[in-house]
């Protein structure tokens, strides 16, 4: 994994098409603002749906609240795009950053958790005779979703406090968390 991280950082530095653009005075702050807006869309849409599964606004059919989800995915897409711009500009600040590793971990949990929801609960919740109260399994998934996205925000917000320090590149941890 360490070799892969070093290769990734080197390759991005050599070929990044956006680094020059992102280093102009306004590009980075604008991309950051968009990243925060995407965050709000994601939490507003996916969080609202999770809360509905957990029993908030229980008179409203779950399928009706699910209509917010595309807006959450739009927020997620904005953040993948702007996030990629950041990584393509300062790859070492992310690839070697333990806070970013945790952010990716929470994103993966959120993604697999959402996949689990659609694989296991979709039919029961959205089919005919759909219950107004979500099954227990869906509630657990909703709670995990809220925690995962809060974890993603936490990992993202703490990035600047875990900037990788220089090291000799011979760490024993799974992922390199310093700058070789």
């Amino acid at each position: 994994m360490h070799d892969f991280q070093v290769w990734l950082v080197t390759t991005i530095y050599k070929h990044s098409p956006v680094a020059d653009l992102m280093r102009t005075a306004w590009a980075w702050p604008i991309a950051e603002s968009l990243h925060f807006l995407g965050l709000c869309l994601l939490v507003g849409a996916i969080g609202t749906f999770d809360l509905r599964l957990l029993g908030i606004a229980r008179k409203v059919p779950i399928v009706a609240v699910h209509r917010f989800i595309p807006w959450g995915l739009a927020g997620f897409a904005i953040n993948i795009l702007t996030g990629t711009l950041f990584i393509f500009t300062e790859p070492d600040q992310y690839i070697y950053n333990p806070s970013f590793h945790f952010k990716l971990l929470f994103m993966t949990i959120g993604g697999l958790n959402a996949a689990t929801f659609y694989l296991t609960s979709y039919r029961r919740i959205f089919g005919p005779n759909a219950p107004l109260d979500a099954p227990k399994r869906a509630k657990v998934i909703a709670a995990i979703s809220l925690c995962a996205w809060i974890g993603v925000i936490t990992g993202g917000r703490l990035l600047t406090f875990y900037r990788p320090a220089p090291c000799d590149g011979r760490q024993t941890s799974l992922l390199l968390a310093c700058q070789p």
Partner: protein
Amino acid sequence: MFAFPGILVLHAIGMGFAVGVSAALDLRILGVAARIPLAEMRRFLPFLWAGFWLNAASGVLLLIGYPTKALTNPVFYLKLTLIAVAMVLLLRISRSAFAAEGITATPDRDLPPRLRTLAIASLVCWAGAITAGRLLAYTYTRLTQLH
């Protein structure tokens, strides 16, 4: 120094819930998820308020941490103004959208057209407040009171 990053994290999470739920309400008024009875959206509002008060509190702590940095920056006052306008808009939206108890199934075509304008203004204000907040990190001229 553990406290400062922790407060920033809370400020970001609070933003997600305050702006996120407010945006969901605005989108609902604008026709997204139209099968949710508009008045039922009020059930999500406690999470908006929780996010708002979390951010009011964490914001005051951040201000205490670096008072000069914020108070000498005009962008900070712009951010506060935009948040104040967004909250006034929220109250007006709430009064209009949730007022009539019992008519939870009012068809959207019967909503006052003014409500759509308020919803769009709310989205614009939040986007502006977030942008102003983010720009605070780039536009300050003094970090502390040293001359």
